[in-house]
């Protein structure tokens, strides 16, 4: 079972992350003004992007909470896959843009004004704030199985990386090493592209109702010893957000009356609901066994 305190956390985590991102956006914006640092300006934009991302995630969590209705008979859980796909796509586009900017600037002659060292302060605050958001989001995302919350945690992680790049850039330019910051930011952008690519892949899998092999094997093992079942024809499990929907096809002797069959179905259901905590519903089709 999911612990009560984790569920409480899952309700407030995104609001806290939103607060952190808004705060960081303001702080970095002010320090960009004071310190003339180009890289801190880029970092400020990233915080703004994270504010937008967090709003998308909050919105999706609101939708995911809605009950099943006539229009959406399987619930709204899959909106989390959609949100995580869009969040990762935005991060990916941002990283690609970042590489182009960095490569473009590498060609030109160094910055006109040396950024002041005070920019480092803002970057350190950003690292700390984002670390809190990342650790919190990751914990909650894992515990309650929410892909949207996890995706946003990775967005915070990406911001940590850019803040590190800011420090390298500011120190480097003050020491006279000009190109260092660009190289660092390109490497970081590449890492972000790899991470977000994987995130998009996962989201698409969820949206396509891809099978989860391990879950199917687990279900097979749980029900194979139930009395009356001749053969398990097929097991399909699909992830609808945090819940799993299961479709089973089970063969029993053809001469068996349906009353008996319904009892077998009930046995299967009670075993699965008991052993697997995130099951939404199980539907069992009975077919006559051959011979």
């Amino acid at each position, binding site marked *: 079972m999911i612990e009560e305190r984790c569920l409480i956390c899952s309700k407030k985590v995104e609001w806290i992350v939103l607060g952190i991102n808004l705060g960081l956006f303001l702080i970095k914006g002010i320090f960009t003004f004071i310190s003339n640092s180009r890289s801190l300006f880029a970092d400020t934009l990233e915080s703004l992007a994270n504010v937008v991302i967090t709003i998308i995630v909050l919105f999706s969590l609101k939708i995911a909470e809605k009950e099943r209705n006539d229009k*959406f008979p*399987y619930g709204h859980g899959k909106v989390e896959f959609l949100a995580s796909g869009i969040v990762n*796509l935005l991060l990916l586009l941002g990283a690609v843009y970042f590489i182009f900017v960095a490569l473009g600037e590498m060609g030109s002659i160094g910055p006109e004004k040396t950024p002041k060292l005070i920019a480092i302060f803002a970057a350190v605050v950003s690292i700390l704030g984002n670390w809190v958001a990342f650790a919190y989001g990751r914990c909650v995302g894992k515990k309650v199985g929410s892909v949207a919350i996890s995706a946003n945690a990775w967005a915070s992680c990406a911001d940590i990386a850019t803040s590190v790049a800011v420090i390298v850039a500011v120190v480097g330019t003050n020491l006279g090493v000009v190109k260092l910051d660009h190289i660092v930011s390109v490497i970081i952008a590449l890492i972000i592209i790899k991470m977000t690519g994987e995130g998009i892949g996962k989201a698409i899998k969820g949206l*396509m109702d891809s099978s989860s092999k391990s879950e199917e094997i687990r279900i097979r093992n749980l029900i194979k010893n139930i009395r009356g079942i001749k053969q398990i024809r097929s097991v399909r499990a699909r992830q609808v957000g945090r819940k799993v929907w299961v479709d089973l096809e089970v063969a029993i002797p053809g001469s068996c*009356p*349906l009353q008996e069959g319904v009892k077998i179905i009930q046995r299967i259901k009670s075993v699965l609901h008991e052993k697997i905590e995130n099951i939404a519903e199980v539907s069992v*089709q*009975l077919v006559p066994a051959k011979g």
Partner: protein
Amino acid sequence: MKTTKDKCALCATRLSWIGLWDSFIIAIFKGIIGILTHSRALQASALYSFHDVVSSIAVIIGLKVSSQPIDEEHPYGHGNVEYIVSVFTSFIILAATVYLFVDSLGIVLKAKHIPAHWAALVAGLISCFANEVIYRYNICAVKHLNSPAILTHAKHHRADAISSLAVVIAILGSKMGFYFLDPLVAVFEAGHLTFLSIEILYYSSAGLLDKSAGKEEVSLIRKITSQISGIKKIRNIRTRQIGRNIWVDLYVSLSGKKTVDEAHKISGRIRQDLMKEIKYLGNINVVFE
């Protein structure tokens, strides 16, 4: 009579490809000229054409991938690919249009304009002409084939032609001294396109969230199923759209004395009757409870 119809059918399939390439080339053409000449209206018009390209590609990918058979990795088939393509691409287009909208609005309000180059005018004319020709061809095919899909396609090209015409007027106007016309046209086009993208985004997202089939289909399924003898009660009908197909979960009560063999025959009947009446059925689960 039959030969003309065949000719039209062939023409229609070819037209969808010609239309796609035409939109694609014109989108890039208008985009490049638009950026070079700083004509916001032409940039907006390029996004318009690009929007057409994306929707056509989504349809083609949908047709290709959805027809792949069900495999172990994807026990529910590949139908959702079509929705996924539209959601992700609409999102990118939406971002671009919102940016252009804000940018153009800023120019209109600042009242500091530079008229666009004559090249933008020529690009607008070419695009307008090409789209109008393709529209005429499509309309010809529609008259003979009565296909709603081709009709929407034709309308897209008409809209594209009109948007290009607006660009031409805007640039002519700005050359005559009404400098605000170019960004103003861009504001309107970007605004309209934003609505279109949101519409597609909403529609495809709903599909990805396992939206149920229409009310008419559900009640048709209920009607057909209830006519089959031996069924005591229909407990529940759940439908969801996977791409173009409708997947159905039927929960039905039978008399408890019937054997599994008999029940299986009834479920076979249900499948047969439903498949006969409703064209786009993916899979039917019949669960006896």
